[in-house]
């Protein structure tokens, strides 16, 4: 799950940074001339900087391979179900609410009034996909449900006083 990876990766790096700052804080009580420190650590910075740049490029290439807003190529005879979604203060108008496992679904999302957020949650209340519902525009979410169950639709962009109760559900059989 993406969220778990994001959390563990962040935690590891944050702790690593804490260790480095802690190490420098401990070493700070010793006293040494700055000149040799500058020389030595500028050299190390080159290696460290190169490492950070390479790491970022690798992560970037890896994470940009498949984007959620790339329309999938549908195989012959496997036409996607197009679902029209219109958000309003404070609810959802969803043209179709029942789907089959393995079916390709496209949610075409817009809004009748303010900006809302269209978030799809699975049965364990994990966020699995989202887009923004913006006036005058239609954003698309491409999804294929792998698991049967009741999925919840939550508004994920603040839209007024009943924002948090703006929920709906869809069923995957």
């Amino acid at each position: 799950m993406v969220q778990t990876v994001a959390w563990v990766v962040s935690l590891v790096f944050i702790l690593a940074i804490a260790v480095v700052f802690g190490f420098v804080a401990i070493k700070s009580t010793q006293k040494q001339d700055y000149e040799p420190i500058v020389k030595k650590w500028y050299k190390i910075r080159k290696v460290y900087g190169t490492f950070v740049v390479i790491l970022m490029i690798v992560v970037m290439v890896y994470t940009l391979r498949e984007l959620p807003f790339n329309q999938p190529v549908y195989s012959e005879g496997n036409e996607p179900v197009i679902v029209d979604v219109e958000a309003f203060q404070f609810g959802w108008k969803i043209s179709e609410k029942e789907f089959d496992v393995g079916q390709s679904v496209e949610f075409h999302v817009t809004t009748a009034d303010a900006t809302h957020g269209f978030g799809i949650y699975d049965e364990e209340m994990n966020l699995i996909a989202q887009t923004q519902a913006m006036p005058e525009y239609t954003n698309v979410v491409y999804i294929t449900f792998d698991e049967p169950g009741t999925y919840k639709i939550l508004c994920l962009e603040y839209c007024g006083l009943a924002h948090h109760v703006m929920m709906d559900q869809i069923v995957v059989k």
Partner: protein
Amino acid sequence: MAITHKYTSLKSRDDKVVTQMIISGAVVIVGMIFGVLMLASQGGLIELSAASFYQFLTIHGTAMIGSAALATSAIMWYFLSHYVDLSKKIFNLNLVLFLIGVVMTIIGIFSFEYASAWTFLYPLPALSGGAWGTTGALLYLGGMLVLGVGFLLLYIDTGRAIIKKYGSLGKGLGWDVISGKKAEKDAPPTTVVASTMVTIVNISALTAGATVLIVNMISVVNPAFTFNPLLAKNLTYAFGHIFANATIYMAVIAVYEILSRYTGRPWKANKPFLIAWTMSTLFTMIVYPHHLLMDSVMPKWILILGQILSYANGLPVLVITAYGALMIVYKSGIKWDMASSLIFLSMFGWTAGVVPALVDSAIVVNHVMHNTKWVPGHFHMYMGLGVIAMMFGFMYFLAKNDSQLKTNGLDKFAFILYTLSMFGVCVSFLVSGAISTPRRFATHLPEWMGPAQVGAVTGIFVVIGILIFALHFVRYIFGRNKTSINSTTQETEVS
């Protein structure tokens, strides 16, 4: 004043700056209390009506960004005024406009029940669903506009002063040094470089902000008026992201000035430093589309660029500034006191906060973490552990610099309390985000409440820690006023 790397001795009194720090500090504390109340409500510990919750949300966001900007612009002004001639009138005018703006937003929110969150996404201010009317919206948006105009004038003045002394904003960023026309040793001081960057990005941000505020105000008055919602959203984030971000770039001036004084090691603006700041100038202005990664109607290349530039924008921090802070402290024999400790902590907070920010700026991650509490998780880290620590570090520095006031065990206790509890708040937000808790929800499902409760409790400790910091500053002000009555000579001597 000669342009030199030697750190000039600081004037020991600056009432304008002190006043601005007091006001910012007070607003921060009030803002934090609203933050704790919201977390307590989400955690089911107290009951708030949805209307109150969203009013608190609106005031919290506005107050925290506003006070951070006010405090850090005072920090920038304090140090920059030692290198260039700044207008005291405009500095004071900004404070006056800030106060007027704050009063207007407060009346709009609490007397007219306005609650659009600080993001006020067009056309939300005009569409309250019966919750607020035209007056509330106009007071809030107008208040923000007044406040923005004050800051805009301030940055126009810093820009003017830098151009007057250094020739151009490009030279303020040391472009003539980067290109080799000028020697590294003649590079502008770090404070000037940072101030130039902030001047450039904030003039852009505030212009975008003023535009979208005016658009919203017209649409509130006349619903027949329409504007492109996608453009409005771009302008809103171009304003909000840059302006909030710039508070760190102003506050880091305190890091440069204070750490180099404490360690006796100069923080020189060499070529890598100047290149890093030019990168930050450029990227800070153009990375805001990472707020729009969930708008698939945006041109795809802009969104991909949004991710790439967000990564690139992490580089100057991770490779130059944080690294520089570590180098300057390493084996320096630095004397740790409240000022230096808070400043060092702030560099940790900033660097650590970059991590979850970078993680979230990957489009695939953003797809399932956008608008969850992960987002406040990362910015509470670099605002709370970063900017606020810089701000109070600067306050302790001021107090030490121009009074005999000693810190005591209580201050040390507050430092540890603050560090641990603020870290706790950040982690509670990040955990909430990892379990898909939406942000900006007045109430939480039972499975989301645990982290919110932890956040609320640790938040209370944060407030206690900050109150102790503030207490020291209050003691300093009273002590200082006494000396000024007793000896008027001191003032003339140092000015």
